[in-house]
C-alpha cells in the first residue's frame, strides 16, 4: 500500500513537470504564456482519466475483486432471505457448539496461568528411567521433584530469575466453630516472588520463613477463604489460625482471583518447610528420593527454551550420578493448568474425542448448507451458464461462489461464536456446581481469548470452504449447451449425478444423526436406570459420618478411645437404632482390593474387600445367608472372612464355600465363615463382582465411616452427631451425609452426560430434518414438470406420491441403517464409560430409528403433498 501511495504521489509530480515543460516549449514557439498553458493541457488529454488508469495499475486486484464478490454475494443472499437465514442458523449451531467446547478445553489445557507475564513461567517435570531395578517414592505425580533436587535446580541454574516449588493438594483441617477440610499448598518461600503475585494485604513469604524445618508457622490465605471464613476482616493478619492442630500466624491475603497454579483452587499457602508439622505421618523434606514438589521457573529475559533445556540437563546429569542406573529426562513447557506429562497424556486424547464428536454435528450442519446451496445452484444454473458463455473464467466464478459461501459461514460463525461465548460461561458453572459433592471445586476460565478466536475463525473458514466447494464446482461445470437450453433432455446426465451427490449427502447426514441420537437414547436409558435402580440394600434412613482421625493428629490408641466414646454417645441419641463402623461406606467411591490365591490354584484373583463391624450387615439389610456373622471380639487377627454369594459361586462352583481357604498377597490364610447376599455396595449396578468382608479392627479407627440408622422423624440428626463429636474434641473436622446422597455421586455423571448428549442429539435431529426437508422439496421442485406430465397423462395421485416418497426415503433408509450399525459398534465403549447402559438396549435401538424415520417421512410428506396440488398446466408451462 505504501508503494502504491508513493507511486501515485510521483505521478502528480510527473504530470506537473510534464505540463510545465510543454508550456515552456509552446512559449518558445511564440505563444503567450496563458495560451501556451492551455495548449499544453489540451495536448495532455483527460487528466482525471490518466490518474484513474494509473491508480488502477497499482490496485491489488484480488482484494478489489473480493470486495466486489462480497458485495455481489451479499446482494444475492439478500434476494433469498429464507435460505440465507436457514443456512446461517445451521452454521451458527454447528460452529457455536464447537467453539464452546473448544473454549472449555482451552481453559483446561491451553490457557496460560492467570499470573503476570505468564509466558515467562515454565513448568518443569522429570521422567525418571532406571536401568535394572530402581525405586522412587511418589506423592501425587512421578514428574515431581524432591526437596534436595529442587534446591539443586534452584541454586545452580543460570537461566531462571527464580525457581519456585510447591506441594499441591495439601488437605488440612481448619479449626474453628465449624471445623472442616480445606485444600491448600506448601510452597517454597520465593513462591510469591517468582509468580509475581505479591499478596494484596500483608506480606508473602520471606527467605527466613524457610530457614529451618518446622520452625516458622506462617500462612497466606486466599482471598475467597478470607472472605468466606474470616468475613474479610483485615485484622486477621497477625492473628493465629489452627491448621491440623498447629497454630499458624496469618501474614498475608492473596490477590483476589489468585488461587495458585493448579486447576483446583488453593485456599492457603504455608512454607514448604512446615510440611512435617502439617502432615506428621510423612517426612518428605528429608527424603531425597521422593517426588512431591511441582516446580515452576521464571526465565530471565532473552533466554530461549533450548538454553533452558541445556542448562537444566547438566544439573539433572549431576544428580543422576548419585543414583547409579538412573537417567532423568526433563519435560519443560510454558506453565499451564494440567502441565505434567501424565495429565497431558490423558487430556489430549480425551479432548480430541470430544472435539471429534462435536465436529460431527458441524458436519451435519455443513451437509445441510451444502444441500441448500446445491438446491439453489440449480435455480441459478442459467445465470452461471450465461456468464460462462460470455467468457467468465471458471476459476473466477468458483471464487465468486466461494466468496458467497464464506460470507454465509462468516455470518453463521460470528453468530454461533457469540452465542457460545455468552452461553458457555453459565453452562460451565452449571456443570461444575452439579458435580458430586465430594468433587473438589475446579476453576476453569472458559471466557474466550485469542486461541478461541483463532479456532473460531479457522473453523468458520474451513466450514465455508467445505460446504461451498462442491456446489461451486458442480454448477460451474462448463456444459453450457444443456443448461442454456433449460432442463431439456440433454441435461439428464448432469441431473443424475447432481441427484446422487445430494442423496449421498442426505444419507450421510441421517447416519451421523442416527449415531448421535442413538448415543443420546442409550444415555437417557442409562439415566433412567440409574434413577430407579434398587441397590440391593436398605439405603434410606441411614446417615454416614466420615472421620479421618489419622490426618487430624490422632494416633491409634487415642483414635480407638475417641471411637468408643463417640459410638456410645451416638447410641444414646434419640431416634438412633443401630450404629456400625466400616472401612468403606456403601457406594462412597472408596474402594480397597487385594489379590488372592486359592489353595490348589496358581492364578491370582482380584477381590474387593471391606472391614466391617458385626452390626453392619443388619444395619444396611444384607442378610447372612449361610454360616455366621462376625462376633464383636473378632479383629484383623481372626482368620474368618465373609464372602458374597456370587463370589462363592465363582470361586468354588458346586462346592460348599464354608471352610474354604483364601491366601492374601501378603501370605495370610483366610477361612470363609459366612456367605452374605449380593448387593451393589461398591459400584452401583454391579452386585456380582468379587467381594468379601473382613472383621473391623482397632487399626481401622484412624480412618473409617460410621453408619447410623435412625427412626423416621428424629429431627436434625446431622447436627446432634456433630455436637456429639465436638463434645469429645471441639476441633474435629467431621463430615455427615445421608447414605442416599452417595447414590447422587453415581447418578450425577450420567445425568450431566445424558443431558448434554440429549441436547446434542436434539440439535442433530433438527439439522437432519432440515436437510431431509430441503432435499425432498428441492427434488420435488425439480420434478414438478415430470409430475405434471404424469398427472396430465392420467397417473393416479397416490401412485405419484408413493413414487416421490420412495425416491426420497431411499437415501434416508440407507443412511439410517449405516448409523445403526455404526452405533452398535461404538455402544460397547459407551457402556464401559457410564453406569447403567446396556450395549444393545432394545428400547433405544428400536425407538430411536423409528422416531428418526417418522421425522424423515414427515419432512418428505409436506413438500410431496404440495407437488400433488400443482396444476398440470402450470407445471408444464413453468419452464
Amino acid at each position, binding site marked *: 500500500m505504501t508503494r502504491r501511495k508513493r507511486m501515485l504521489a510521483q505521478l502528480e509530480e510527473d*504530470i506537473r*513537470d510534464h505540463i510545465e515543460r510543454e508550456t515552456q516549449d509552446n512559449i518558445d514557439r511564440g505563444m503567450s504564456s496563458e495560451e501556451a498553458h492551455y495548449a499544453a493541457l489540451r495536448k495532455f*488529454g483527460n487528466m482525471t482519466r490518466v490518474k484513474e488508469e494509473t491508480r488502477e495499475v497499482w490496485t491489488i486486484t484480488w482484494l478489489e475483486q473480493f470486495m466486489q464478490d462480497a458485495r455481489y454475494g451479499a446482494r444475492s443472499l439478500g434476494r433469498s432471505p429464507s435460505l440465507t437465514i436457514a443456512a446461517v442458523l445451521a452454521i451458527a449451531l454447528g460452529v457455536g457448539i464447537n467453539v464452546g467446547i473448544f473454549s472449555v478445553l482451552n481453559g483446561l489445557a491451553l490457557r496460560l496461568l492467570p499470573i503476570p507475564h505468564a509466558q515467562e513461567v515454565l513448568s518443569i517435570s522429570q521422567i525418571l528411567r532406571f536401568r535394572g531395578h530402581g525405586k522412587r517414592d511418589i506423592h501425587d505425580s512421578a514428574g515431581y521433584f524432591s526437596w534436595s533436587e529442587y534446591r539443586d535446580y534452584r541454586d545452580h541454574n543460570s537461566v531462571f530469575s527464580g525457581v519456585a516449588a510447591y506441594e499441591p493438594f495439601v488437605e488440612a483441617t481448619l479449626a474453628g466453630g465449624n471445623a472442616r477440610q480445606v485444600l491448600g499448598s506448601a510452597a517454597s518461600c520465593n513462591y510469591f516472588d517468582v509468580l509475581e503475585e505479591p499478596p494484596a494485604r500483608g506480606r508473602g513469604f520471606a527467605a527466613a520463613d524457610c530457614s529451618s524445618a518446622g520452625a516458622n508457622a506462617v500462612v497466606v490465605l486466599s482471598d475467597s477463604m478470607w472472605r468466606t471464613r474470616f468475613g474479610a476482616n483485615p485484622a486477621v493478619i497477625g492473628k493465629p489460625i489452627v491448621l491440623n492442630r498447629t497454630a499458624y500466624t496469618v501474614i498475608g491475603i492473596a490477590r483476589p482471583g489468585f488461587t495458585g497454579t493448579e486447576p483446583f483452587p488453593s485456599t492457603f499457602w504455608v512454607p514448604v518447610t512446615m510440611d512435617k508439622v502439617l502432615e506428621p505421618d510423612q517426612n518428605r523434606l528429608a527424603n531425597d528420593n521422593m517426588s512431591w514438589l511441582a516446580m515452576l521457573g521464571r526465565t530471565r529475559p532473552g533466554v530461549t527454551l533450548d538454553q533452558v533445556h541445556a542448562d537444566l540437563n547438566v544439573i539433572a546429569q549431576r544428580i543422576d550420578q548419585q543414583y547409579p542406573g538412573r537417567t532423568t529426562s526433563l519435560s519443560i513447557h510454558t506453565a499451564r493448568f494440567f502441565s505434567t506429562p501424565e495429565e497431558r497424556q490423558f487430556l489430549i486424547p480425551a479432548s480430541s474425542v470430544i472435539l471429534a464428536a462435536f465436529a460431527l454435528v458441524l458436519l451435519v450442519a455443513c451437509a445441510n448448507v451444502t444441500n441448500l446451496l446445491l438446491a439453489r445452484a440449480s435455480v441459478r444454473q442459467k445465470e452461471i451458464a450465461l456468464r460462462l458463455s460470455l467468457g467468465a473464467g471458471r476459476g473466477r466464478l468458483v471464487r465468486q461462489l466461494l466468496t458467497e459461501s464464506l460470507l454465509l459461514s462468516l455470518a453463521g460463525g460470528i453468530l454461533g461464536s457469540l452465542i457460545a461465548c455468552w452461553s458457555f460461561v453459565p453452562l460451565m458453572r452449571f456443570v461444575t456446581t452439579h458435580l458430586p459433592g465430594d468433587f473438589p471445586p475446579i476453576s476453569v476460565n472458559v471466557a474466550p481469548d485469542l486461541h478461541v478466536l483463532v479456532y473460531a475463525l479457522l473453523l468458520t473458514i474451513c466450514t465455508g470452504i467445505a460446504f461451498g466447494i462442491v456446489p461451486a464446482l458442480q454448477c460451474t461445470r462448463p456444459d453450457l449447451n444443456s443448461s442454456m437450453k433449460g432442463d431439456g433432455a440433454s441435461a439428464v446426465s448432469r441431473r443424475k449425478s447432481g441427484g446422487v451427490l445430494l442423496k449421498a449427502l442426505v444419507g450421510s447426514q441421517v447416519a451421523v444423526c442416527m449415531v448421535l441420537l442413538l448415543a443420546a437414547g442409550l444415555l437417557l436409558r442409562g439415566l433412567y436406570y440409574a434413577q430407579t435402580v434398587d441397590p440391593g440394600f436398605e439405603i434410606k434412613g441411614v446417615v454416614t459420618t466420615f472421620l479421618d482421625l489419622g490426618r487430624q493428629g490422632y494416633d491409634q490408641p487415642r483414635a480407638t478411645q475417641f471411637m468408643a466414646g463417640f459410638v456410645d454417645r451416638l447410641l444414646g441419641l434419640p431416634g438412633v437404632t443401630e450404629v456400625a463402623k466400616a472401612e468403606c461406606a456403601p457406594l462412597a467411591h472408596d474402594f480397597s482390593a487385594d489379590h488372592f490365591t486359592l489353595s490348589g490354584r496358581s492364578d491370582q484373583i482380584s477381590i474387593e474387600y471391606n472391614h466391617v463391624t458385626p452390626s453392619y450387615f443388619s444395619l444396611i439389610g444384607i442378610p447372612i445367608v449361610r454360616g455366621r456373622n462376625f462376633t464383636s471380639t473378632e479383629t484383623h487377627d481372626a482368620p474368618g472372612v465373609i464372602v458374597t454369594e456370587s463370589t462363592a459361586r465363582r470361586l468354588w462352583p458346586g462346592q460348599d464355600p464354608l471352610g474354604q481357604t483364601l491366601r492374601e498377597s501378603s501370605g495370610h490364610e483366610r477361612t470363609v465363615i459366612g456367605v452374605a447376599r449380593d448387593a451393589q455396595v461398591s459400584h452401583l449396578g454391579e452386585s456380582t463382582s468379587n467381594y468379601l468382608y473382613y472383621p473391623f479392627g482397632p487399626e481401622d479407627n484412624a480412618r473409617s465411616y460410621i453408619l447410623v440408622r435412625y427412626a423416621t422423624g428424629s429431627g436434625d440428626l446431622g447436627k446432634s452427631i456433630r455436637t456429639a463429636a465436638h463434645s469429645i474434641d471441639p476441633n474435629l473436622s467431621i463430615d455427615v451425609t445421608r447414605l442416599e446422597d452417595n447414590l447422587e455421586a453415581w447418578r450425577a455423571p450420567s445425568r450431566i452426560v445424558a443431558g448434554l448428549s440429549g441436547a446434542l442429539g436434539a440439535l442433530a435431529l433438527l439439522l437432519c430434518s432440515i436437510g431431509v426437508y430441503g432435499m425432498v422439496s428441492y427434488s420435488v421442485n425439480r420434478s414438478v414438470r415430470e409430475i405434471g406430465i404424469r398427472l396430465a397423462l392420467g397417473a393416479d395421485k397416490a401412485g405419484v406420491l408413493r413414487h416421490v416418497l420412495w425416491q426420497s426415503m431411499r437415501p434416508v433408509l440407507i443412511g439410517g441403517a449405516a448409523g445403526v450399525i455404526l452405533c452398535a459398534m461404538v455402544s460397547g465403549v459407551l457402556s464401559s464409560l457410564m453406569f447403567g447402559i446396556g450395549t444393545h438396549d432394545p428400547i433405544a435401538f428400536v425407538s430411536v430409528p423409528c422416531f428418526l424415520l417418522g421425522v424423515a417421512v414427515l419432512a418428505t410428506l409436506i413438500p410431496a403433498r404440495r407437488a400433488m396440488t400443482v396444476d398440470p398446466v402450470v407445471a408444464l408451462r413453468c419452464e
Partner: protein
Amino acid sequence: MSTKEQQERIELLQGTLDLLILRTLQLGPLHGHAIAKAIEFRSDEVFQVEQGSLYPALHRLIKRRWISVEEGTSENNRRAKFYALTAQGRRQLRVETSKWERLAAAIAQILRPVGQEER
C-alpha cells in the same frame, strides 16, 4: 481539426504504446515529457498520442519491472523523474519487437493486392 488531418494520424493499437516506450528508452534514460516528444518526433508526428496516456503505460511497465524510475537532473538543471530500461525490459523489448514484426508482416501479407480479386 480538419478531416484530412484526422485521417493522416493513426490511433495507437492497445499495447503498442508499451513497445514504443521500451524502444525509445533503449537509447538511454529519459523523463516523461521527453519520451512523449521522442515518440511524436520519431514517427513524424503520425501517431496521435494523447500525452497523458503515456503515464498509465509507464506505471504498468514499472509494475512489470521492465523499466525503473529514478530521480535525476535534466539538461537545464531541473530535477525530474528519469525512466530507464531494466535488463528484463531489454529482453522484453526483443520479444515484443519480433512479435510485432511477425504481426506486421502477416497483416501486410493479407492486405497485399491479389490479381484475381482486383477489378
